[in-house]
């Protein structure tokens, strides 16, 4: 790593990123930090001078700049007050306060595994990644497509500008996880979201990490909640689909059988909790 850039405009940044003769690494710090020697490339780009650390609340969406830190997500009233505080909690549990100060939502998107809680919330909220192409044009891509099979698809020369999350006053979320200790990495974590009326959960989303090799939405389980009704039968129907969607990997934290079982337990708990919110 021989070169360090700190561009002060987006235009300059895109030019550096688009340089075909240099592999430039934008410093989106992930919550699971890397040693400097592990940044693979010829040059580092410090993005801190680009005003990408702003949270912009619009009428129908909230835009979170790619350099907004996890600490800001954890503590900001704008974020805490929405979605039942789940995004804040996911950011808080991701890592320690020192690393939260350093790591950003852009870092999470570029490194979506361990920890994956923030990604789960973004998946559940139908968030979109706003990318700046090298020609300066903005494109939007759903987070789920951006993280294809857990790998971010960021083309050379592009920059993650911000994350867009649609706003709906009826959106509620529930977050559950299992870990050995309170601040230990999750074994399995689940985020469930619904836009709630008294009995229905429109746009039900179930996002799971730990029961597959990457964070993912359980589409079949979502569809199984028939007619968007949150009934106990509906919840049971959802849960029958879980085993079709899990493909867990055993590792030193836990085995596959346990992970599959926990996915079902946590999804069921989360749906019941969502139902309670709806019913009151």
């Amino acid at each position: 790593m021989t070169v360090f850039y700190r561009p002060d405009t987006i235009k300059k940044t895109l030019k550096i990123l688009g340089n075909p003769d240099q592999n430039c690494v934008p410093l989106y710090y992930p919550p699971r930090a890397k040693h400097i020697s592990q940044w693979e490339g010829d040059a580092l780009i410090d993005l801190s001078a680009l005003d990408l650390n702003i949270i912009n609340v619009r009428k129908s969406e909230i835009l979170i700049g790619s350099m907004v830190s996890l600490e800001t997500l954890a503590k900001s009233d704008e974020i805490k007050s929405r979605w039942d505080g789940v995004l804040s909690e996911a950011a808080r549990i991701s890592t320690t306060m020192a690393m939260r100060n350093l790591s950003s939502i852009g870092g999470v998107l570029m490194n979506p595994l361990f920890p994956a809680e923030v990604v789960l919330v973004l998946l559940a909220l139908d968030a979109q990644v706003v990318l700046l192409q090298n020609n300066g044009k903005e494109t939007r891509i759903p987070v789920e497509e951006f993280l294809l099979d857990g790998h971010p698809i960021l083309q050379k020369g592009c920059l993650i500008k911000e994350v867009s999350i649609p706003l709906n006053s009826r959106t509620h979320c529930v977050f559950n996880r299992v870990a050995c200790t309170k601040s230990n990495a999750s074994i399995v974590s689940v985020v469930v979201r619904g836009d709630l009326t008294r009995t229905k959960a429109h746009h039900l989303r179930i996002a799971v990490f730990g029961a597959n090799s990457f964070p993912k939405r359980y589409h079949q389980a979502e569809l199984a909640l028939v007619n968007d009704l949150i009934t106990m039968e509906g919840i049971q129907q959802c849960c029958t689909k879980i085993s079709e969607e899990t493909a867990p990997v055993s590792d030193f934290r836990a085995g596959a059988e346990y992970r599959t079982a926990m996915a079902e337990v946590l999804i069921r708990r989360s749906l019941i909790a969502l139902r309670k919110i709806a019913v009151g």
Partner: protein
Amino acid sequence: MDINFTLNGKKITCEAEPSDTLLDVLRYQGCFSVKRSCYTGECGNCAILMDGKLLPSCVLPAPQAEGHQILTVEGLSEGQDLHPIQKAFVETGAVQCGFCTPGMILATKALLDRTKYPSLDDAKDALGAILCRCTGYYQPLEAVMRAAAYLRGEAVPPYTRPEESVIVNPKDADRFHWVGKSVDKLDAPKMAKGKPVYVDDIELPGMLHGMLMTSPYAHARIRDIDTSEAEALPGVHCVLTYKNVKRQIYASGGQTYPNPKPWDQVCLDNKVRFVGDRVAAVAADSVDLCMKAIDLIKVDWEVLPAVFDMEETMKDGAPIIHDEPDAYGVADAAHNKAFVIDAAYGNLQDDFASSDLVVERVYHTQQVQQTPLEPHIVITWLDENDRLVVRTSTQVPFHVRRIISPLIDVPVKNIRVIKPRIGGGFGAKQEVLLEDLCSLLTIRTGRPVRFYFSRKEEFQSSRSRHSDRIRFKVGVMKSGRIKAIEMDMIENTGAYGVHGFTVCNVTGTRGLSTYRADSMRFHADIVYTNLPVPGAFRGYGGPQGIYAVESIMDEVAEKLNMDPIKFRMKNVVRPGESIKIMDKLAEFDPVPQKVNSFGLEECIEQGKKAINWDRKRLKRFHMDPLRPNIRRGIGMAIMMHGSGIAGIDMGAASMKINDDGSFNLQMGATDLGTGSDTILAQIAAEVLQIPVNKIIVYSSDTDFTPFDVGAYASSTTYISGMAVKKCAEKIKEQVLERASAMLKQPIDVLVLRDEKVFAPDGSSVTMEDIALNSLHRTNQQQIAATASHFSPECPPVFAVEFAEVEVDVETGQLNVEKLVMAVNPGTVINPVTAIGQLEGGQATALGYAVCEEMCYDGKGDMLNPRFGDYHILQADEMPEMVSIIIPQGEPTGPFGAKALAEIPTDGVAPAVANAVADAIGVRISSLPIVPEKVWKALQEKK
């Protein structure tokens, strides 16, 4: 490139490469408070404030500091003053080894700059960024709240929690002036200020960097090794391999001479026995060059089959790990047995046969790592007399000197070993791990060399705690009387024997010495596997043995339908009784042991109150109707741990008077952050009746301090403390003799008090008068003395641990809600450091109980050699902890003191396991107690 930033209020410009970390740049600027520890941003010991935000400097490229304001702890205070945050940390005993202290202080500053009224949760979140292995976080959290009060301008009362935790018999109150008082740790201010006091905090001209090349294979021979390309690289000064290093068999454990067998190590071998084993060592101008050189070393490997399972390894046909002809004292190399222990008394067979109930269980304990926040580090150089100086982070400076001498062909008299402040040891540094290689590199190059372990190497290539399989069998009568106990274990000593025998000895001792029985038997196979090497870890075999014995005793009580405490108290050894198994089990020759001081009943009484033990009988306690998936339980365990090693451990101290009536106290005793410098000074102060700050302590330097075995076996207070007391008493004699001459009064009427000697007629002389008289005026002499001490006794310390847990029966998730420990350590010399030892030990033990484990793949490579993956508990996840000290004087200890360094690590795992059993009716017989295990046990129960 040039980087311009403001450092501690001053604008500076410095040169750095993009690949330099901010951590390294700050240290080059003299900010030694910023510590090298994990290099993955997870431990927070390198934390700095950048524009008021706490950031880990070890993962920040240096250029990122451009234009920013950086604050380190050096910038908080000037001169001798302490910033209120630093003051609060010192007063609350929150500074133990001090390695994490700067990070904690900066985290506190960031918090208090944000809010003047932090909640406890805010404090936990802030300190959650900084890993600590010493304190258990309670005292640091108290420091945060105390600092907030200081900064609000409030009148802050004295810090009294430690004194309140010590239940002193009224007749013993105010017996002493200095002993029993919470004196601020003598070294705390300098550590709170971030002064350069650790091994790595020096830069020597021409210093080279050393690095280890380690094995990627669990078991392999080195057919050949070619270092020519590496040696040809400009800036590489020396490469060591088995080809150019003397082959001298030894054992690396820092233990008494002669080292217990087996001796199965050489500095560099042509065979490797675990992933992470030594292959070569390099000295070069920079760390980067070392890495490049290592990449250029070509090894012709013959990969051999490996064995990792402790039972498989003993079978016929298993790969033989130590087939070298010069290994000495290996019990059965063909079956990978490093050592075998057998000890027994009584007629076991008959006693089991005549028991009303026999319970037999097998327990498994896991391998865990000490994780000192300061990794192993050594700096060596040749002084102006061409003597080798070894500045090292060690618990055993004198053993280091003796052990490396034959390895490097330098006589002991030409080696000086210095231990400055060290950032935690916990047993990992009771070892010669890098000193031999670093010394050889210095000898070969003639230059200073700095050699340290990366965090990954600290996990894989240093030391850890032995994993065991322990089969326990207990025979009892219906009355509850234990008739027979059999303990049969396999200890996995990894690739080398090191501490294997002695740790196993302690496992057996701790497993079999708490309770009496008509007959007992202990058998142990200490076996080699191709795994990283365990060694000494605080508790030293005690945690494993006590987990097993206290788990089975709990089960036996349950089967007898007896209260678990009553059952235990019916069978525990009592004052006046001898511990029979100690007649058979010992490191060298068995030394019969008797119980003198006890105090267990009082500990249990206090502990029961603190945990509210009687709730255990209530059904409504166990089940919460509002949380139908949660079950609660309370469990307990009795612990007993020794004070030093009887007949073996020895410590010594020297003192001399100075012109102003102050004293130099030189001790070989090794302060790891435990506070031993302070408490030993308190002992001396008590004898001489002078303030502690009139004693200048210097410790752990083989040229200037007398011998001490070092910091292990809970020996420092009991053994080294008595050496200090004896030394101070000799000084006192000389002082009184001089005063007698000056006052013209007989010695036996004189009284030492308040830095003076008083005669009955009211005349007095000050200590300064005595000093000046003896050094300059009349019959001049240097008032000085040396004393040493060893003990034929090893008075056991008794304690009890209680745990309250909640278990989620659907997920198996376990939350430990509360821990209570009550202990009789004899007289408490310093309550604030004592409480710190209890809380820190319990925190480590809790990690052992619920989450820590070194995990391997099928090829013996560690899967989790970093913080985060190997999770040690953080400030924001500690349960409520209550520590109660009930001091009852031990006649053979200094002012009645025994020990309390290791016993806090012994009881948490069995207390938690027993609490889980109480909650869900299922016993977990292997550690750690992770959610998956609990869930599986519940599934099987269904």
